[in-house]
């Protein structure tokens, strides 16, 4: 179980894997997430499901190398197995026919917004997708998103591909132009989701974000992922991961994302010190 069936490089730091997990694949819905452990001594990390294949029993995950665990995950090869893989967790996206909607993805969030975009279109919505990255090389899953949406707009910060600028500039133009946008979904780095919500607020368009808090169990037991939504404490793992972004206390959310930054750095430094290219055997733990 939990065998890596396929591994792909999407850009320099973002990788994609299809994992064999038939129980998860049989019940997962767009918007839900999984928690995985690479090895017994590993940590439990949550990842939003990027796609699934119920027939083959596979779950698609997309991750960016940001620390020790994600780098270690990247070193695994097709055929290797994960120690633990649980899910689906969290609530599914509320998919219905709203009319005209926009989905906004940035970074690995592009992968996470993909199944939501597809499900919205399948439900009869007209879906405009906006995906953005720093430059052309960092744009991932463009063709999949294009197929899943009614219209796709790509932005790059440096103008090396698509429109020059940020996703929020395009979003603002669309909202100015079209008064019939019913709802917006955005997944990406916290700061991008925050700015997206600030952009939509004056237009009073409900904007759903998917929060990537630090978790342990992911089933409502520990409360590590708590976040303030409209003045009330909620658990991202069981009440979310999707929330009305305009109600999120972003300062607190971003503070809590940095809870372990010292430990994360220590882990990373030690890992790199231990994976030097000689055969002394260090780095294997």
């Amino acid at each position, binding site marked *: 179980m939990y065998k890596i069936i396929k591994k792909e490089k999407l850009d320099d730091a973002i990788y994609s894997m299809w994992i064999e997990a038939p*129980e*998860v694949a049989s*019940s997962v819905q767009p918007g*839900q997430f999984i928690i995985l*452990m690479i090895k017994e*001594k*590993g*940590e*439990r990390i949550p990842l939003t499901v990027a796609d699934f294949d119920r027939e083959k029993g596979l779950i698609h995950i997309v991750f960016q190398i940001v620390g*020790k*665990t994600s780098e270690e995950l990247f070193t695994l090869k097709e055929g290797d197995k994960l*120690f*633990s*893989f*649980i*899910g*689906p*967790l969290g609530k599914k996206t509320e998919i219905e026919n709203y009319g005209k909607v926009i989905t906004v993805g940035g970074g690995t969030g592009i992968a996470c917004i993909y199944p939501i975009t597809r499900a919205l279109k399948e439900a009869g919505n007209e879906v405009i997708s906006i995906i953005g990255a720093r430059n052309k090389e960092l744009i991932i899953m463009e063709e999949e998103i294009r197929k899943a949406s009614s219209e796709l707009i790509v932005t790059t910060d440096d103008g090396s591909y698509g429109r020059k600028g940020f996703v929020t500039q395009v979003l603002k133009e669309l909202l100015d132009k079209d008064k019939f946008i019913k709802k917006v979904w955005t997944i990406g780095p916290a700061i991008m989701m925050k700015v997206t919500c600030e952009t939509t607020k004056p237009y009073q368009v409900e904007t759903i974000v998917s929060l990537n808090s630090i978790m*342990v*169990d992911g*089933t*409502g*037991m*520990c*409360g*590590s992922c*708590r*976040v*303030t939504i409209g003045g009330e*404490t909620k658990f991202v793992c*069981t009440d979310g991961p999707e929330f009305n972004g305009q109600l999120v206390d972003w300062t*607190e959310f971003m*503070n*809590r994302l*940095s*809870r*372990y930054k*010292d*430990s*994360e750095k*220590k*882990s990373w430094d*030690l890992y790199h010190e231990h994976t030097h290219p000689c055969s002394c055997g260090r780095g294997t*733990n």
Partner: protein
Amino acid sequence: MAEMIPPKERVKREQIPMPEQEPKERIYNFKEVPLGYTQEQAIYEAQRCLQCKNPKCVPGCPAEINIPKFIEKIVEEDFSSAYLEILKTDDLPAMTGRVCPQEEQCQQVCILEKQKKPIAIGRLERFVADWARENNIHGNLPKISKKEQKVAVVGSGPAGLTCAADLAKLGYEVTIFEALHQPGGVLVYGIPEFRLPKSIVEYEVKEIEKLGVKVITDFVVGTTKSVDELTQEFDAIFLANGAGAPRFMNIPGENLNDVYSANEFLTRANLMKAYLFPKYDTPIKIGKKAATIGAGNVAMDSARTALRLGAEKSYIVYRRSRKEVPARAEEVHHAEEEGIIFNFLTLPVKVLGDGKGNVRGMECLKMELGEPDDSGRRRPIPIPGSNFLIEVDMVIDAIGTSANPIVARSATGVEINQWGYFIIDDNTKTTTKEGIFAGGDIVRGSATVISAVGDGKVAARAIIEFLSSGKSLRKRF
């Protein structure tokens, strides 16, 4: 065989104290605090047992152990038979021998309690279980033929494991579903290594698996599969998923970075082994001064864990007085020996931040005791204007848990009460849906390991009765 001593002599003897790791040593390690009786100590203690004709200790034991009988076997130095005697009704003896509150159960009703020297039943049980493990003595595998009926157990904590073992011994096909990656429930995520070594839990779970019980980890009943779906595949279901959700004070500042629920703090330390970071990848952040709110066993575990992880000062902050402390006396004693500082009649009202998301202190009110409340304990009342500051840089909320709704949400026809706990018939542990049973903390709220064991036993009997009468949850055509 050790000598049987005359009753007069037995009464004269004093209880053998438990050898323990020295406090000044143990606050720097996670090794077990009580070291366990030696063979000689166990025999000497066992010889004190009066072997009452109508022993009061047996009905005092939710695990239904024939206590005088296994103690007699210790006197006979037949530890192997003593172990098999315990295993007849308790499949987790190394665990119950360590964490049961014997002083409120079997030992409280021991005839020698009147002289304040009851038989140290828990310590003897622990000795026998440890001896058997170290000497490779195992229980007898059931010789009974396999039955066709299948039972699903949700949760692999003490209630689930006990129920599963009792059913497997009678030949039923039992599958336990565990949400985490390791079986044991609260025994692995909650109770610290220094109170219950995880290798022991692992061992006892393996022994139960040998009875034919299948344990499936990484399976969240409620999301991976619903209870409704399980009713298509199993003839009966026992819900023992634990209370699960942490409670918070709901005071300002509680979402600051260094405020933990006890569940998170202990899960990181115990299940994820954050105390071995960076050898294990899960981090934990420890302040110089840690405040644990609450005074139950979980609070003691949290405060003592914080100390071992490097906190210079570890406080217990409790709104009632010493007299009302719900933790076991032994735990409080151990905590005090280790230098945990107790702040009684103190109510936190606000966690103060440093402007960067970190904790710099806790504002509290002084309390006084008023008239008794619903629990029969004197109600703590805040003294107006008594606000004061405790300088701390981390806070652990250990004020209890509430029901996690994931399992209940997926079980049509299984009703819950206003707190989210399953409504059951206390005699049979049957929920409002026939064929689905429930026990442990998801019925009782935060209770003890041994009451969960007791629920598992009662439920197993009711499940056997249900299945033997030809009933099933599955539709058979």
